[in-house]
């Protein structure tokens, strides 16, 4: 029987800090040049120290790896480079012992063209799996669906020479979409979920969920049958597996994304994609307006649901959910070298995007942690790792974790040439300058700062559970808001400008209370009826707890 390590807590994900791990790049436990589950187990103490509540694993299944593993060739196994199903079980067990939960990427929309289901479907059109993919005699249907990977794909249809028909794919042509109209496909995918849930996994990040169903005359995204199926998935999970979470990856506008929460009966979490480019925009334009606007246009979500928020992840910094004009601005500011662009986005890590500015990196984390949602950190960003834009596709942001200044960045004991990718060696972001070991030892390092910051956020459930109340002022360079939950009232004030800024905030509602700065616990002057004046350093921020004076 499985041991249950956690007290039952159906809303754990609302207070959690997530950490996204690229297994291949984290730590090599068997000296073959590629990260694996044994290696990940060895580094769990580090993640526990950092304050991680939940690890999100990038795809771990057997795959030809033509799309970073999002091209799954077998849903019931572990990629041999990463270990075995037994290793995976041991990893989950060890993580649970440290109070860390585990969710994994799962792609329901499509498979690799190498998957036996597809091979059967293309060779035996009348056989049991003949109808498991979306086949058509022409490439005419569903013309209103956009193409996502604009850099590589010209159409969502590709002619299969074996079957002599076109198959539908919303992503790469080697990733045929499954036919969710077929009830057998729906059941097959539920069986996959059950298999991993039985092994103890705490949930899934459901990749590419908006595209499960197609319908003529629509964009074939976010369709009602897609939502109906996700509700069925949720009901099946809830019935047998307590405290699990479904996290939807739906790169859509907030009004469309909230549909993935249903009435609290669909996915518990969904990423808030549009907020992230606007944070970068705000910092570059020195204007907080885009932040206020996107949060203002974000609908309320059910009480048992939560946004997932991130600064950067394993993909490009996506610019799908901005206007053309905003996209041009972002490209001009953040992708000066055209190599940095990919599809509709920018393939760079956090630190290089912000020119390595410690103040800006801290400010971005402060804004991220202050927003209503659960933050998702991307491996390596906690030490300000860099990227390599000369590597293909998104590999540039998936280089080995830099553990030490020793050989292979302490990532692997294999030969240098054997490594799946070589660690960064440039003088600014290379592993001799940027590594975990050195930053652990230095009390003033970014890693140590972030560790304290995570601890601070976790001390106050208000950040995960509380309301968000924007606090506009005359100074558009200031992003200020109130978070409130039960007795806890938190005032967050951020200066997105490169220069020092004064701000007068209308805090009359809190007259008589005393703001206590949360890091140093210094009490500021009490709030009166007049506007409250604060001065902020360039890219500076303050978080205050408003205390009743006794």
């Amino acid at each position, binding site marked *: 029987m499985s041991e*249950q*390590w956690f*007290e039952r807590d159906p809303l754990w994900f609302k207070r959690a800090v997530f950490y996204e791990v690229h297994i291949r790049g984290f730590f090599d436990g068997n000296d073959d040049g590629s990260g694996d589950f044994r290696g990940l187990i*060895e580094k769990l103490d580090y993640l526990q120290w950092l304050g991680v509540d939940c690890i999100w694993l990038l795809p771990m299944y057997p795959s030809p790896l033509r799309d970073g593993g999002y091209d799954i060739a077998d849903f019931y196994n572990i990629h041999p480079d990463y270990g075995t199903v037994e290793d995976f079980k041991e990893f989950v067990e060890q993580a649970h012992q440290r109070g860390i939960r585990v969710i994994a990427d799962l792609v329901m929309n499509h498979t690799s063209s190498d998957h036996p289901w597809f091979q059967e479907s293309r060779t035996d059109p009348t056989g049991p799996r003949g109808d498991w993919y979306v086949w058509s005699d022409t490439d005419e249907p569903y013309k209103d669906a956009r193409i996502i990977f604009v850099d590589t794909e010209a159409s969502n249809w590709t002619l299969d020479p074996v079957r002599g028909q076109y198959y539908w794919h919303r992503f790469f042509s080697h990733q045929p979409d499954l036919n969710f109209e077929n009830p057998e496909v729906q059941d097959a995918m539920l069986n996959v979920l059950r298999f991993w849930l039985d092994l103890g996994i705490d949930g899934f990040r459901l990749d590419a969920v908006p595209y499960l169903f197609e319908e003529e005359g629509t964009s074939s995204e976010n369709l009602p049958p897609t939502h109906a199926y996700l509700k069925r998935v949720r009901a099946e999970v809830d019935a047998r597996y307590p405290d699990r979470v479904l996290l939807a990856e739906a790169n859509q506008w907030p009004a469309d994304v909230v549909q993935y929460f249903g009435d609290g009966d669909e996915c518990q979490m969904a990423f808030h994609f549009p907020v992230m480019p606007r944070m970068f925009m705000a910092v570059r334009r020195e204007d907080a307006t885009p932040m206020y606007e996107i949060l203002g246009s974000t609908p309320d979500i059910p009480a048992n649901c939560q946004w997932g928020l991130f600064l950067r992840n394993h993909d490009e910094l996506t610019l799908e959910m901005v206007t053309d004009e905003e996209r041009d601005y972002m490209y001009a500011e953040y992708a000066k070298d055209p190599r940095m662009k990919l599809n509709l986005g920018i393939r760079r890590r956090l630190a290089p995007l912000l020119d390595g500015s410690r103040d800006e990196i801290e400010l971005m984390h402060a804004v991220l942690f202050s927003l209503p949602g659960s933050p998702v950190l991307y491996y390596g960003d906690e030490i300000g790792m860099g990227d390599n834009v000369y590597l293909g596709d998104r590999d540039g942001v998936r280089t080995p974790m830099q553990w*030490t200044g020793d050989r292979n960045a302490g990532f692997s004991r294999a030969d240098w040439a054997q490594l799946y990718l070589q660690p960064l060696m440039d003088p600014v972001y290379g592993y001799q300058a940027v590594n*975990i*070991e050195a930053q652990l030892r230095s*009390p003033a390092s970014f890693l*140590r700062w972030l560790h304290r910051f995570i601890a601070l956020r976790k001390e106050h459930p208000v950040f995960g559970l509380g309301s968000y109340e924007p606090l506009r002022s005359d100074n558009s360079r200031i992003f200020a808001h109130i978070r409130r939950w039960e007795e806890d009232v938190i005032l967050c004030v951020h200066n997105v400008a490169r220069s020092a800024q004064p701000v007068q905030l209308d805090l009359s509602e809190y007259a008589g209370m005393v703001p206590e700065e949360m890091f140093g*616990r210094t009490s500021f002057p009490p709030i009166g009826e007049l506007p409250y004046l604060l001065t902020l350093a360039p890219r500076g921020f303050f978080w205050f707890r408003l205390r009743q004076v006794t």
Partner: protein
Amino acid sequence: MRFDEHALIDHVTQQRWYGAKSRDVAHAQVVDSVVLRTAEPQFALALVEMRYDTGAHDLYQLLYSLRGETIEIDGLKDASLARELVSAMRSGLTLHGAEGVVEFRPVEGYAGLGRELKDARDVGAEQSNTSIVFDDELILKVFRRLEPGINPELEMLRFLTEHGFANIAALGGWYSYAGGPLAATLGIVQEYVRGGLDGWELALDELAGDPDRFLGRLRRLGEVTGEMHSVLGSDSNDAAFSPETPSVESLGLLTATVDEEIARVFLMLPDEEESVAPIAGRGEEVRDQLRQLTYTGAAGQFIRVHGDYHLGQTMWAGDDWVILDFEGEPARSLAERRRKRSVLRDVAGMLRSFAYAASAVSLLRGTDPPEGWEEEARSQFLEGYFETVDASLLPAGQSATERLLAVFELEKAVYELQYELDNRPDWVGIPVRGIQRLIEEPTAA
């Protein structure tokens, strides 16, 4: 058997072993139960789930009795009923509940269980358990708050017994639950050390009367501790106990953790308080010293350790020391308590205990210990310890060992400082002196 939910909530939330005092209980319900005695008064075991308004829950073990229609939730009020648990262990019973089984098991060849038990007395509730002593020969520990997994008390006693470590109170038997709600150890019975003197009380008595006499016992305590660690690190075939080489960043993680704790505690230090004057405003010095101590990075091997080691966990049994209470720090989770760590954490705990004894004798008995007593106590204990312990468990080289030990002492003293500031202002001087000693002592090169 149906319980009144309100009575159940009232009862459980008032117990010393109830761990969630700050939470609002929304529901309490019995999730499984087995009957231990069918004759009047009936006696039964129940697992009770306490569900909080946040949706979280905890499981507790209750032993209740029934006379006619009258239920007594605290069945151990009549301590003699606890004999049923021991006799179930003696006969190796397996009892089936609705959701799982309760297994009672004796330790093979343990004679103490064979006797008929007469007298039973409640020796008071601890933070996590209730203990009953029978005829001054056996002690039963009933674990109240249940966590999934084997309880370290059972696991450690069994391992130490099997590997021939004699300085413990022998394990007689145990009982555990396995089923839908969880799998967990419910209780153990072990030898009661009759006439044993609590190590802490003995220290205070002898420090007040005959300080040298106690010093004379400490070398032996060091030896026993060293043996205990050697035995705990001796079996590489048992995954739960086999020594592990710590990861490269383990010392870095420890340093960062201690460093941040120092910064946090010093930030809140009441500067005007006279007792903290020797270290007030010296937080940066303490952090510098920590950096010096952790400059070279060796941590030795990690093994299972006692985990909550101090004089109060030892007993002088007339001719030798007995080590007690392997449950670990009750506030930590069970998985956390079962983690492998450096043996020097235990050693540091004991050294800090000597500092406490030296001061407590002034505070509680009104006599000062002789000049240099604590130093002498430390060196007696350490001499015995280093002579006995398996050196492969320690960082290579005396200097590295001393540094790591100092780091653990510092960690402990900083924790004590916070604790005493919050709870016992009169005792603040003890950790203050400990921290002062550590910053003023030059680090070994």
